């Protein structure tokens, strides 16, 4: 029965893509093909949408990294005389915000915190979740039950609610927001890692390795990691887009960074009062979040397709 079960349809904000189903045939092909990563890269480069999204993201990241060199103005310096100028004003390409600060500059600087706050939780969750899932899948039995039942508890909370609950209880702040999002993303990553590990463990080559005297360490390092990390990594990339939206969402609620720090979600919040005076400028930070989020989604889909060698 190949119909997607509700378990793989964890289509919450937290998992916008169904968990990759492990297919032993593909894994074997992946291992046997020489230059697998080169094939993947070549396929990625042929995918125009993925390349375009990657270039756009690269541009936004480079702008954020080199913001002090590239931004036209000071992100903190405003002028009461120049508040809420429209897009395309003299000297202010994208207008000014409610305190008269240059929007273009603040959008460029805003990428720094927004990207870090969106990507870091996914990296943390990937490391911790993959560890928990692989250990659970490898050990099996009580250890697995213990890990997976604990993770089930977090599934009892809708992801936005969980993120808001944790960061709300911890109090506003960048670090707390990232901790909250990490906690939100560990369970789905661990579930994917556990299910793929369990499937790999049941395959003949693991049995063969054990019979030929391979140690647990070797089996984990070669057979488990080699086959599990790929699907788990692809799954994690599909979480970045959600994480960006949630991280900026927490800032939007006032749970992330504090003014006057430039961050897209927070800028969107402080500009809310300006929608009657200058709607174009007020919508800009959200457009940035949207652009980055859709690019990450497209890239994740592209990567998934490129790594699926049987296609």
């Amino acid at each position: 029965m190949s119909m997607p079960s509700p378990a793989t349809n964890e289509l919450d904000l937290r998992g916008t893509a169904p968990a990759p189903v492990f297919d032993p045939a593909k894994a074997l092909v992946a291992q046997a093909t020489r230059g697998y990563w080169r094939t993947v890269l070549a396929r990625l480069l042929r995918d125009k949408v993925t390349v375009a999204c990657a270039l756009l993201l690269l541009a936004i990241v480079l702008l954020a990294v080199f913001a002090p060199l590239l931004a036209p103005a000071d992100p903190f310096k405003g002028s009461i005389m120049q508040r809420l100028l429209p897009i395309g004003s003299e000297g202010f390409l994208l207008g000014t915000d409610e305190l008269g600060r240059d929007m273009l500059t603040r959008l460029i600087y805003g990428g720094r915190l927004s990207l870090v706050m969106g990507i870091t939780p996914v990296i943390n969750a990937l490391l911790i979740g993959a560890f928990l899932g692989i250990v659970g899948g490898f050990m099996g039995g009580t250890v697995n039950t213990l890990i997976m039942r604990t993770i089930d508890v977090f599934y009892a909370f809708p992801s936005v609610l969980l993120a808001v609950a944790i960061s709300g209880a911890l109090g506003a702040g960048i670090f707390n927001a990232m901790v909250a999002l990490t906690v939100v993303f560990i369970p789905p990553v661990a579930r994917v890692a556990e299910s793929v590990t369990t499937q790999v463990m049941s395959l003949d080559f693991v049995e063969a390795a054990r019979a030929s005297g391979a140690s647990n360490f070797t089996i984990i390092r070669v057979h488990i990691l080699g086959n599990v990390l790929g699907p788990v990594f692809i799954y994690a990339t599909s979480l970045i887009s959600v994480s960006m939206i949630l991280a900026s969402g927490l800032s939007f609620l006032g749970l992330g960074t504090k003014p006057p720090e430039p961050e897209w979600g927070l800028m969107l919040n402080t500009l809310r009062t300006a929608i009657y005076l200058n709607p174009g400028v007020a919508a800009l930070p959200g457009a940035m979040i949207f652009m980055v989020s859709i690019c990450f989604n497209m890239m994740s889909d592209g990567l998934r397709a490129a790594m699926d060698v049987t296609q």
Partner: protein
Amino acid sequence: MFFYLLKRLALVIPIALSVTVVCFSLVYIAPGDPLSTILPSDASIELIATLKKEYGLDKPIPVQYAMWLSRAVQGDLGTSIATGRPVNAELGRAIFNTLILALFGSLIGFSLGLAFGTIAGYRQGTWIDKSVTALAVTGVSVPHYWLGMVLVIVFSVYYNVLPAMGAGPSGDWMWDAEHLKYVVLPAITISVIPTAIVTRTVRALVADILGREFVTALRARGLTDRGVFWHVVKNAAPTSLAVMGVQLGYLMGGSILVETVFSWPGSGFLLNTAIFQRDIPLLQGTILALALFFVGLNLIVDLVQTALDPRIRRA
């Protein structure tokens, strides 16, 4: 089915209990004293001790949990530190308003999702399918709180046809035309994610079912398209319903961002207040209510799905 029901109910109890543990422990991951918000900074030690006693904060943590749980089971979620009113009283209307918003949102999301998904599934590989898929990716990528602002800009600022804030003149949701206007924009905003996800699910299901051998067999037997469609519906229904049920739960729990944008007087708005006034009992109560609602909904979805699809029972 009866045994399945029992088994499923037995599984829900530990989950519900762990949810209460998580909600209870929110107090302890919160920095500072839970009383610090209501106490003046120069409060005397006696006053602090009295208040601690009053709120039960002088007891060991497991005892506090047991006390809190036994009260919660009886429907007493404590007193809001900020307003001094029972948390229950605050929760009632707010949850109701959120439920109304979530129901309207799912109504839009599920109808659009079912329609788009079915069409795309039937027209697999065509430009219609590709546009629907692109729409679905856009739907899950758009920050919905921003979309809400954009809708306000278009429909309230430029055209001035729909209200931008609140739930209507009475301050709460009511069943009349005047209040219906207030729910339109937040409901559309909140429906974007379920629309995208239901579309994706239904599209995948329909495409998968149409490719099965039994469909070819049905066609060979001379069934019309309408006859085949009935079989598609029957086979796609259990999974689609499950996804939609879970989405309703996510809308209930995840509405805080949209409620903030539209100042909708629901549970998300309440959470916001609780967080910024550091009102931990209110925070705990709201999260507990929403999470338990979600657990209950998942249970119902699971049972309905099992009732519809005998294959799950056998598995």
